């Protein structure tokens, strides 16, 4: 009896550190969701209420399929970490506004079960679930997935995406493109709304500028050289604002699980993304290509990481640097003494 009383008094022991940051996985996921809200709001405003229905259905499909899978497999239920919500939102914002509901729902189930859970759940998938699902839907339902007809539109021009219009040799309004007064998927149209969200993610330090910065920079350089338009600010601005590049660069390429961990690797990853997107847009049949560039780069990620492990503190080039500093120090001292 006495022993148990004594035992109760013992404090917890654990290995240091004994503190944990307030930033949790759920908090990070919530931040990503918050950052996508401006784009979603614009989508709903621009395309109508049905866009919201699509989004809710996709998110619900993701969350429910995660729950059902984990329940069936007798795994701990992890829907409260918010990752399924993020997947659902990204997928939904990648949907054309008039999509029949069963398509994004099927995509959500595919994203969570095939791309994420079958590979071991959160943190184990090697492809971005939402993008893999989008590509799956593009192949399976090519027509509805590329039907960007504006709700209530009658002419053909308003149903083509601005980049498709440009590829066809016609011009678009850059202001419309920036604000989002164009056709496209629910979430990709407004560069302004997306940049607002991106600024939030950067300010909250949820993402770093490395991947999106290098991505967009490389893409611009690639287009300068290979697009045949040369240094045409209007053309370049349209290319950056259109085709979901901003959405892809800040919200999808920065997906933690499927991107490189190492800072140098993130730069390389950004360069590869920029080049691939450029190739797809200039030489490919489609005008966009962001999704394919990202999932192809996802596959390269382990290779990139392997070759971009940073030099440890005090090793390699830091040894040389220190030696140089020591020699310099000796020299300056020597000079100072002689000067006296």
């Amino acid at each position, binding site marked *: 009896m006495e022993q148990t009383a004594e035992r109760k*008094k*013992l*404090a*917890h*022991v*654990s*290995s*240091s*550190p*004994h*503190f*944990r*940051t307030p*930033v*949790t*996985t759920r*908090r*990070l996921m919530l931040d990503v969701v918050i950052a996508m809200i401006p784009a979603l709001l614009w989508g709903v405003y621009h395309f109508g209420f049905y866009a919201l229905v699509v989004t809710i259905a996709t998110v619900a499909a993701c969350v429910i399929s995660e729950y059902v899978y984990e329940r069936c497999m007798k795994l701990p239920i*992890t829907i409260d*970490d918010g*990752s399924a919500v993020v997947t659902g939102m990204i997928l939904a914002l990648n949907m054309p506004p008039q999509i029949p509901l069963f398509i994004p729902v099927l995509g959500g189930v595919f994203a969570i079960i095939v791309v994420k859970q079958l590979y071991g*759940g*959160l*943190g*184990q998938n090697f492809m971005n679930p939402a993008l893999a699902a989008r590509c799956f839907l593009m192949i399976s339902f090519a027509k509805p997935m590329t039907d960007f007809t504006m709700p209530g539109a009658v002419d053909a021009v308003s149903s083509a995406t601005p980049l498709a219009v440009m590829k066809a040799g016609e011009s678009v309004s850059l202001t419309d493109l920036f604000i989002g007064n164009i056709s496209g998927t629910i979430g990709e149209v407004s560069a302004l709304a997306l940049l607002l969200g991106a600024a939030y993610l950067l300010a909250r330090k949820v993402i*770093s500028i490395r991947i999106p910065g290098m991505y967009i920079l490389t893409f611009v350089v690639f287009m300068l050289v290979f697009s045949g338009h040369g240094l045409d600010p209007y053309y370049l601005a349209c290319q950056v604002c259109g085709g979901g590049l901003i959405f892809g660069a800040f919200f999808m390429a920065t997906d*933690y*699980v499927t*991107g490189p*961990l*190492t*800072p140098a690797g*993130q730069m390389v990853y950004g360069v590869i993304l920029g080049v691939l997107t450029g190739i797809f847009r200039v030489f490919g049949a489609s005008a966009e290509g962001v999704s394919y560039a990202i999932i192809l780069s996802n596959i390269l990620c382990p290779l990139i*990481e392997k070759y971009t*492990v*940073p*030099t*440890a*503190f*005090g*090793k390699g080039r*830091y*040894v040389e*640097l*220190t030696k140089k*500093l*020591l020699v310099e*120090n000796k020299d300056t*001292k020597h000079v100072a003494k002689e000067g006296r």
Partner: protein
Amino acid sequence: MKLFTFKGGAHPNEGKALSENCGIRRLELPGEYVFPVSQHIGAPAKPLVAAGDRVLAGQKLAEAGGFISADVLSSVSGTVKAVEPRMQVSGFPVMSVVVENDGLYETAPGIGEKRDWQGLTKEEIRQIVRDAGIVGLGGAGFPTAVKLMPKNDEAIDYFIANGSECEPFLTSDYRMLMEEGERIVGGLEICLSLFPNAKGIIAIEDNKPEAISRMEKLVSGKERIEVASLKTKYPEGGERQLINAVTGRYINSGMLPADAGCIVDNVATLAAIYDAVAMSTPLMEKVITITGDAVAEPANVQVRLGISYKAVLEACGGLKTEAKKLICGGPMMGQALFELACPVTKPSSALCAFAHDEVAENPTTPCIRCGRCVEACPEFLVPPMMVKAATHDDLAGFEALNGMECMECGTCAYVCPARRPLTQIFKQARKMVMADRKIKAAEKKQREEHEAAAKREAEQKLAADKAAETV
């Protein structure tokens, strides 16, 4: 003013407001004092006394067990009760000399006499520091006399007094800077006298502006000493990071600070050096912080080494709520205690008592590869890769990822949003690598001995054969 810093790190809740304005209180506590023979890095000291002996304060209880080792001195006068293993902060019993304090505080002869240190030779100063049992008081416990003996005195161009105190909640160094600045500067001047080319830098994080301005006042007019303000960031006070912040130089785990022309000592260590050299007082007391949200009255107290944490905490007013977690040291690198009946030793810096255990309240979830640990690692390592290697028992892979450069500072585990026990995994892997190295070294030695014996045998046989031939 220039702000010095390093790349990486994190900024945990500082928590210093609890105790930073509590002046140092000296506590003379009765009872049992426990002096473990191993309070430092290096060989354990060898006990010189036996049960029943009467000892004086400042008397040597155990003698350094090698070059990298330190003497253990009694901090009180009294009778040796026992020389036996006693439970330590580490959770392991260590051979200790147990002295019952007689409350007289009778000191060994010569202690407390003022000494004109300027007349001493370098060798004398080093011997005094060695005899005073001084080790790094910041937490690592490296024997200070060894630090003061680099291969080449002239090659040292920076002597850094570490007053950064980057561990959250700890304020003992801050109080030392505020109240005992003269002793710190005195200690630094003594150390500088050993190194003709060295510049003294007192490095303090910029969350302690009063300490910075106070020290600046104290060193004004002293040509060889400067105060450097550091950006408040954990682990700014780590030896390698501090050297890098102040000098731009880098050292790795295989190098000594002296290899980069630097020596780093904690400010409390410098005060102890001053006491030993200028006041003939060996290391017998230490300022520790008693803090945390479960402590009734946070305080900075000067206690005699060897007293139990339990006695110190009780003398400070005890706990106001049940403490879920008791930590010896700070929350980032401190050791969690399951009970308080452990003695205050030389590297002890604080006792933190928290009503909540953040580790238990934050269950581990899957790694989402967010890379926050990579950004934060002050050693520029890639924790998720190291975890993969370590958890697959791939020790060679772990070493190839520079796992042995990890200094277990805890930054990666602190920043992890998935609450993964990264630092714990690395501690384990590092121990396994070290054990592995030991086994391999022993095997190599055995093999060499075997080969040498075989060679000798062959030679003897050859000689015998030759002798037989000549006959």
